């Protein structure tokens, strides 16, 4: 079986361009939550030597000078376009496994070519995508990477070409090899993916990890990461504050808000979390930067917002010291499908009933949010008003595809 990877090119920038033909070939950058730093760039912006992660205030002049179009992140738009890309891909190939907002793996059907798939999605949704097809997921990633540099934006990597592709792939560009691992490998004279495939499996296992061993197998054409396995393993919700926060109460509020957003995400994906992690951080560009992080295991896997908030408060109490905080993040970890939750065998009936009631409540709250808009109902701990004021999004584009009052206007002249 051959595995395909569909990856949207400069996804956020492409979404911003979809209804703005005037922005074709123009440099575009998208800012993070609260307009803090650059999180996505168009090809033209990358050519100006702008980089992901640059603080906005540091490059504002450069952006102005080069007439770069700046947008606040419009996740409502990006999610809708992502759903369309996934739907279109599913209609074409059958089984898909979304990996992130702009990537999905799929089983490559015999009756289609990589370029067919690319052309169909790019035309039908209006977002340029690249397709890589190879024997394993890790190789499909590499094929996709090379495909992006070709005019067809697609590459079907045949077995006999694999050696050449691996030779051309630097170690840090391999899927699953992070900075640290790459450094370690380079120190041992392993520079390319091809070098890695020549290593002894025992040595890899001893010095790196089991996942690196999986990567090695995948590079050799042996599937080690199944398509279904790569579903989201954790979810994160975070924010940088519009003004500095110092007191415990202020942080508790912010953390509670993030737990609420996270809870909504979990319910929407029909997932429950087994543990959550909290991180609060001060300004990275100032002295004495701190970013404490800690994790707590939940009594039982849940997506029940009050339970998430209670657990988060316990962690926050542990890590909080008075300081000038710039933002916070909350992660939900070890996710499982909600339906499969095991009821606790040794707990009382009433306890299990309570759990079922919590599940039911979570879905009702979610329904209310969906029907009447988010923020209409929330836990008291979030201080409701706050969620409205948290974000600064001065350069937000319209929600072209999800709000009637925002649909693009076409001039009939």
């Amino acid at each position, binding site marked *: 079986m051959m595995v395909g990877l569909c990856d949207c090119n400069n996804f956020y920038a492409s979404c911003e361009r979809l209804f703005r*033909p*005037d922005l074709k070939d123009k440099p575009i950058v998208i800012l993070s939550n609260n307009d803090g730093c650059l999180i996505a760039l168009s090809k033209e912006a990358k050519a100006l030597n702008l980089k992901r992660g640059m603080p906005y205030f540091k490059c504002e002049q450069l952006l102005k000078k080069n007439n770069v179009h700046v947008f606040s992140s419009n996740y409502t738009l990006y999610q809708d376009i992502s759903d369309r890309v996934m739907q279109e891909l599913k209609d074409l190939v059958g089984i898909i496994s979304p990996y992130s907002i702009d990537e999905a793996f799929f089983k490559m059907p015999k009756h289609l070519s990589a370029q067919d798939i690319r052309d169909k999605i790019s035309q039908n*949704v209006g977002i340029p995508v690249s397709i890589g097809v190879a024997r394993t997921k890790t190789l499909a990633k590499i094929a996709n990477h090379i495909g992006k540099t070709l005019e067809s934006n697609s590459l079907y990597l045949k077995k006999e070409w694999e050696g050449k592709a691996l030779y051309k792939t630097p170690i840090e560009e391999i899927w699953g090899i992070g900075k640290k691992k790459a450094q370690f490998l380079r120190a041992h004279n392993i520079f390319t993916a091809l070098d890695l495939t020549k290593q002894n499996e025992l040595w890899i296992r001893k010095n790196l990890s089991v996942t690196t061993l999986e990567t090695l197998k995948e590079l050799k054409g042996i599937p080690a990461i199944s398509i279904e396995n790569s579903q989201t393993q954790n979810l994160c919700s975070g924010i940088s504050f519009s003004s500095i926060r110092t007191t415990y109460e202020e942080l508790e509020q912010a953390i509670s808000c993030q737990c609420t957003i996270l809870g909504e995400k979990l319910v929407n994906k029909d997932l429950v979390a087994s543990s959550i992690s909290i991180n609060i951080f001060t300004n990275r560009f100032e002295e004495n930067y701190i970013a404490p992080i800690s994790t707590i295991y939940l009594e039982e896997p849940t997506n029940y917002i009050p339970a998430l908030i209670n657990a988060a408060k316990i962690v926050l109490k542990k890590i909080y010291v008075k300081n000038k905080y710039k933002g916070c993040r909350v992660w939900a970890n070890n996710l499982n499908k909600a339906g499969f939750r095991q009821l606790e065998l040794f707990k009382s009936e009433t306890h299990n009933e309570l759990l079922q009631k919590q599940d039911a409540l979570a879905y009702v709250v979610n329904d209310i949010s969906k029907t009447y808009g988010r923020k209409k109902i929330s836990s008291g701990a979030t201080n409701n008003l706050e969620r409205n004021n948290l974000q600064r999004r001065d350069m937000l584009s319209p929600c072209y*595809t999800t709000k009637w009052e925002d649909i693009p206007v*076409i001039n009939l*002249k």
Partner: protein
Amino acid sequence: MKKDNPTILMEIPIKCGFPSPAADSRENPLDFNELLLKHRASTYCLKASGDSLEKSGILDGDILVVDKSLEAKNNDLVIAEYEGEFTAKRLKIKGERVYLHPENNNFEDIEITNLESFSLFGVITSVVRTLR
């Protein structure tokens, strides 16, 4: 198990009113999505502003339902990108030549000479107008 000792599968009282004679014929009510949204992933809505398509029945303020997955044919109403702008016109293909034809006598046909800066966004499949 003996034959004369039947197993009881269920013991629930059943409410027995007179059954609706139409219950088996129930179908879903009319769904506008079925009518307007043939390909959900490739359909976008745009709002018309202006009167250059008047004669086709498209008026200022109408919502245009546009399907990007359809191949445009001669005489289709289309949304096109031309010289960095969206435009809505009737597509006229005469042999090798392509025209964008407005549906209003005050406007003139545009012949597409610069294919480089021309691309079709999609075909207008429906028009939605609410009256009150």
